[in-house]
């Protein structure tokens, strides 16, 4: 029982950072592929494909991280199944990590609006 509680709790605490990592890998991969294949001329919904995909990925990541933050704020935080003591810390950790990741994800996604994809 401790083990599932540990794995669930620990991944829960790390979830916002993991979302950041996946988002980061995704936008880097998307852009790398687009430039390697010289698809930067392609348009999607009237905008360059890189911008649409990267902003889309950023929006998804932001929503997920916001979900983690909300969960930490309103109690459905990971760590429920374990006893009283470390819970406050676990929630605080999860929440702070989510807040930090939100900013980092936004900060990473925004250059898509300004910088040309492949130059």
């Amino acid at each position, binding site marked *: 029982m*401790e*083990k599932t*509680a*540990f794995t669930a*709790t*620990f991944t829960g605490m*790390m979830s916002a*950072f*993991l979302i*950041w*990592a996946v988002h*980061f890998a995704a*936008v*880097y991969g998307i*852009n*790398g*592929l687009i*430039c*390697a*294949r010289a698809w930067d001329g392609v348009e999607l919904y009237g905008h360059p494909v*890189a911008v649409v995909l*990267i902003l889309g990925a950023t929006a998804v990541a932001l929503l997920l991280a916001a979900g983690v933050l909300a969960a930490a704020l309103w109690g459905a935080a990971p*760590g429920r199944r*374990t*006893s009283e*003591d*470390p819970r*406050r*810390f*676990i929630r*605080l*950790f999860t929440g*702070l*990590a989510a807040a*930090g*990741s939100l*900013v*980092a994800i936004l*900060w*990473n996604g*925004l*250059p*898509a609006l*300004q*910088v*040309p*994809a*492949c*130059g």
Partner: protein
Amino acid sequence: MTPPLDDAALPSRLPRPKEELEALKRAWKPTSGLGLLKEVNNNIIGVMYIGTALLFFVISGTLALVMRTQLAVPENDVLGHSLYNQFFTVHGTGMMFLFAVPIVEAIGVFLLPSMLAARDLPFPRLSAFAFWAYLFGGLAFFCSLIFEVAPDGGWFMYPPLTSMKFSPGINADFWLLGIGFIEISAIAGAIEIIVGILRTRPPGMTLDKIPVYCWSMLVMAGMIVFAFPAVIIATALLEIERAFDWPFFIAERGGDPLLWQHLFWFFGHPEVYIIFLPAAGLVSMMVPALAQRPLVGHDWVVVALVGTGFFSFGLWVHHMFATGIPPLSLSFFSAASMAVSVPAGIQVFAWIATLGKGRLQWTVATWFLLGFLFIFVAGGLTGVMVAVIPFDWQAHDSYFVVAHLHYVLIGGMVFPVFAGLYHWWPTMKGTMLSERLGRWAFWMMFIGFNVAFFPMHVSGLMGMPRRVYTYPGDLGWNVLNMVSTVGAFVMAFGVLLVLIDMARDAFGRGRPAPENPWKAGTLEWIPNDDYATRSIPHVRSLYPLWDNPNLSREVQEGAHYLPGAPTRRRETIVTSPIEARPQYLMPMPGPHWSHFLAGLFTAAHFICLAVQLYWVSLVPGVLAIASVFWWVWGLDKGADHPPQDVGGGWRVPVYLQGSENHSWWGTAVLLLVDGTAFACLCFTYVFLWTVSPDVWPTGTDALPGLGWLFGEAALWIVAAGAMLLASRAVAHNRSWTMRGALLVGLLLMLAAAAAEPYNHIGSGLVASESAYGAIVYMLASWQVFHVVILVLMTGFTLARSFAGRLHARRRVTFDNVMLVWLYTCGQGVVSLLLVHLFPRLAV
């Protein structure tokens, strides 16, 4: 199990019987003389480990002094061109791989057990093995300089400069094989540290009461798990390219030197934080002790540490700003580089706030900490500068970067480590270093450092490139270089004073220290011995010694947990990872020759490879494997004692199987390393495809038929099934079924692993012809390598089964093999899908 104790009562009743302490002492009695080689106690290994790392620091530093002498005046000829190249390579490599990472791990191995009040970390023999492998490997690496066969491609060894074509000698092989295998020892240390921090905490030290330093070590070890495989794979690919001409990095045949940079810096940037975070953790422990108040914003600092760990993985391309990567991709990395300075800033503010609120004790450590803050902040500022892409294009590969990197590395880790040496020295054997010498040393190091490295910012901006062995006298760099050299010698003199101070102490001239000389609040200040503290304290807060002034006394009288050695051998309590509840009493391996021999033979094996004695290398290789078998044969003892009383009403078993066992955790962490390495190979495949799709097969004709894919995948899946069958057989003690299932499964895996290269050979693919061929065979070889390991492991399992050491109630060995086995099957299937489906789907 039994209920936890109520708050008032002490875990063990006083007074304790006399024999108890005797038993404890007997079990932990250190071996003396030559027996030191057999020793595994982390208290002792840790000290030798720190000493060796300092030795390598001095050697690498001496090389730097020679380089600085060469650069003091223009057109100097102390070092020739080629020797200078070897010097900066060995200096950089030595500092990064043989000093910085090892010393932070060594300090961890020494400090963590006492900070966690554990008798020892869970895998003491593994850390001892890591130490010996490191010692022998490191010595051999430096020796390559004596024979002028030292690597000369810079510490990051960029191909094509280091490819066979441009580095035909064995110099590069020394780096690739020497450093490649020392990384394995770093990973061994990381496994020990992760499982140690999560599972050997004292009862009551719940997740929120873990000291910051332990968090920083947890993050560091986690980063090693995910960063080091990248460089191990990179070195393996380059070594294979050099040995067998498989063109991973050769552009003419579809390879790409940038692949190296990606893999190297995916490791290399986190590496900087692997070095810095533990140092920051030390600072976060020293600052509260010196200011006599709790760390301000403790929880924030913990989140900042973990966040830095994650974010620093998103920075690797900032070392590649000048390589022609698309602008938008660059801006992701520029953004992440700036984001990562936020958590660093949080920590700096927490330290300053704590110092500001408290009444500061002025010790040598305090001085080194202030020096650290000053230098590190300056280095951080130039870091933000080089994270700005246009600026980086200007400063790239100039002395500005040399200045920046030394500000960050020396400020960020050398100063905190020296502070730590002075601060924690008393916990070693109860003596103190000299405050007077220490203060002299600090000022010489601080002033010398700034005099040496500040001018480099200027010479860099004036255009002096890095890695030049000399320069003409009319470029206006003369004075700056002379000043730098003088500063370097002043700094070196400061280091020498510290060494003299430590030598004085070693010769018995150190002052005896009072108990807890700085009045710190954490557990490592409880007086301890070879067996660690007399009893393991029950922890109720972050600074237990401040909250309970009697704690130290209680612990020394044996009033807390595990006051003796109930099973008469070395053992410690394993607790649950979140709530730190006692789960079982873990027997610890004692002194032995096996891990020492394993370290020695492993080093010998790799050295033989480096000097191209391929056949000879088999001898130490086989001996190393034999030593490991000898070593693990004695482990997994089963429940050879009834459950024991460890105090506080906890009666715990001495053996636990399944996913709660510490070795299961160790294996799981190892598989994370393995999985990361495999992911790097998959990345290599896709990356090479993006840069040279022209060498990929276009039609399906050039590919093996789909039948191979399904056939081989089926073999892996059935092999996994055979393992599950064997597992059930163990549970019901049906030994023959188990043995049969293992053998059948092994044969299936051998068939699957062999079929893959076989069918590519059949369809005419040649590894040395193109990068495509090279990576396909590389993935196949990776799988073969795993099956070879499993042949050894299965043989070992069968041997244990025949020896009666494996049955339903004693199956930890089996479970670990099962984990590796199932992982290998899964990896086999993924690898097949990539190799066979990707070219069919790719556009």
